């Protein structure tokens, strides 16, 4: 029972990261139809920026996390402007290839600048906590709580503010949004900024727990794609729920079935589900 609870707790923590990353990806993929395959690399870049700020400039943990979010937000805007916007209206494969180029560029730039060896951010909150019979660190609790707060804030932003509603408007009907005077380019920029900032936040929060390496985002982005396709493209609730479910499945599957094949389950499930329902579990029919 204790092991089970421990795995559930770890699953929720993993799921918090997945939910935040998937939420960012669903914004750009589901809403702007940009298959941002480099999303995992933006996540990785976010972790490195935080590491850099803490180790080189002696930033406090929270100051570093917030600065990293801002920096990655700007990077996201640049990516949208220079990598994806020139390809709007061209065959979908082109944007895909551009994304792969960006992926290679980011991964290797980071490897050049900071080296390929794994790095670790010193634990800001190393104390252990005893909760319901399980032992954990404060940092893990912080990840869970911070993710929930950020997800709620994003929901409020999109539902309650003018800027947020323009994102929804573009998602529903790009041309209609243009007709009522919404600057679609600005909305794209903003969406990319939010998406990248979320990735940076997730990466920075997790960085003291796991090692950071230039390839840390490679599998993560695929998991995020699995989540958003299963949860329904563009559906934020689907991304959040899917994130937590995948975290739990992975943690329990890895703990009780097989650690080596835990990723195979997730990816295999995607291939099968897409075979049965080619537009995803909750996807709309479209051409």
């Amino acid at each position, binding site marked *: 029972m204790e092991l089970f609870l421990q795995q559930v707790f770890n699953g929720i923590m993993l799921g918090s990261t997945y939910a935040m990353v998937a939420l960012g990806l669903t914004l750009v*993929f589901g809403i702007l139809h940009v*298959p941002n395959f480099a999303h995992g690399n933006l996540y990785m870049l976010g972790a490195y920026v935080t590491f850099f700020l803490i180790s080189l400039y002696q930033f406090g943990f929270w100051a570093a996390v917030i600065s990293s979010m801002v920096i990655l937000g700007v990077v996201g805007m640049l990516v949208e402007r220079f*990598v994806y916007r*020139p*390809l709007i209206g*061209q*065959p*979908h*494969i*082109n944007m*895909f*290839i*551009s994304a*792969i*180029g*960006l*992926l*290679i*560029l*980011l*991964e*290797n*730039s980071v*490897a*050049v600048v900071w080296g390929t060896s794994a790095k670790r951010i010193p634990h800001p909150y190393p104390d252990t906590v005893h909760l319901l019979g399980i032992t954990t660190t404060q940092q893990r609790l912080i990840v869970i709580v911070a993710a929930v707060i950020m997800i709620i804030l994003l929901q409020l932003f999109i539902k309650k503010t003018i800027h947020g509603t323009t994102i929804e408007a573009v998602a529903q009907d790009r041309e209609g949004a243009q007709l009522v005077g919404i600057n679609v380019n600005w909305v794209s920029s903003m969406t990319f900024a939010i998406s990248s900032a979320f990735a940076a936040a997730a990466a920075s929060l997790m960085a003291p727990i796991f090692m950071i390496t230039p390839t840390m985002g*490679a*599998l993560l982005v*695929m998991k995020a*794609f*699995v989540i958003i*396709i299963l949860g329904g493209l563009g559906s934020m609730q689907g991304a959040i729920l899917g994130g937590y479910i995948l975290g739990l499945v992975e943690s329990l599957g890895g703990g009780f079935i097989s650690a*080596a*094949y835990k*990723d*195979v389950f997730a*990816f*295999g499930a*995607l*291939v*099968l589900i*897409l*075979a049965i329902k*080619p*537009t*995803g579990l909750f996807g709309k029919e479209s*051409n």
Partner: protein
Amino acid sequence: MKYNKFLKQNWLYLLLLIAALSFPLVISSRYYIQIMITALTWAMAALSLNLILGYTGQASLAHAGFFGLGAYSLALTTKAGLSFWLALPLAGAFAAFIGLFIGLLTLRTRGHYFAISTLCFGVIVFIVAGSWIEITKGATGILGIPKPTPIPIPFIGELSFTSQTNQYYLVIFFLLLFLFIIYRLVNSLQGLSFMAVRNNEVLAEAVGINTFTTKLLSFVVTNFLVGMTGGIYAVLMGGVSPTVAGSNLTFFWLAYVIIGGVATMAGPIVGAVLVTFLMEYMYSLGEYRLAIFGLILIMAIIFFPRGLVGVFTRLYQKIKDYFGGIRGGGAGQNAAKSRKANETL
């Protein structure tokens, strides 16, 4: 007369063929021949990727997965004592067989969904190759794959593949074979239906093409060819490890196809050879060269989506137009017409 015409139309290809055949005779450096062997192996993989990606319009990102399946299949069968010449088509058939099932599952999806689900399959192959230790020997991989079985030739002796030059010709032989197969396929009625599916799937369906079977056929042939390429790679390297199924390889081949020229015969080869040599040339830059490579890929897709071959054909057409215009209106108009036909392709 007939030969004259053939020479006039194909002089460039003949020249390239002669250059390719005489390469190891002219260049004595083992280092350059080895790079050329690698480049041409990648060219083969890029050629088959071009069939599904360029001609059929489906971005299969499981390409390295099938390459790996072929490589592992060849490694296991030849180590069990099977002759290379039987093991190689078997490697292709194995990849094609798995490809048939994966195609049945994934080809129901379209566009990004297809790319993502094939990428997922590629990662599964990679993980299994690294984890199924009883069969694949895990991360170390399978070593000591025997060189291709020598072919006995009456009166001369036998043709063995221990020397680098002979290995080079082995690769050239299969490259030409692949080129021939893909050329014949693309220029057949079947090839036209591939392109019809690429250009407009709904329209293709409407004129009576079974788009699903068409895509499946293209996918299976692609995987047969890349499975064989994996086998050739495994035998030349003498060993396989999970990296042969890594998605990085797929990304590289994709880049070769795009930089060379998508949906052209020469594009994948031009891209593979040029980029491989460029990467070797920039070796001193270390890790930077991969970052530069990513940048080149982004720029290529934004500014030259038709690749180097596309740029050259356009340039050639412009020059032809220019001189045709001077000689007489008729020739110029013809050129303009053929250029337009090229663009709508």
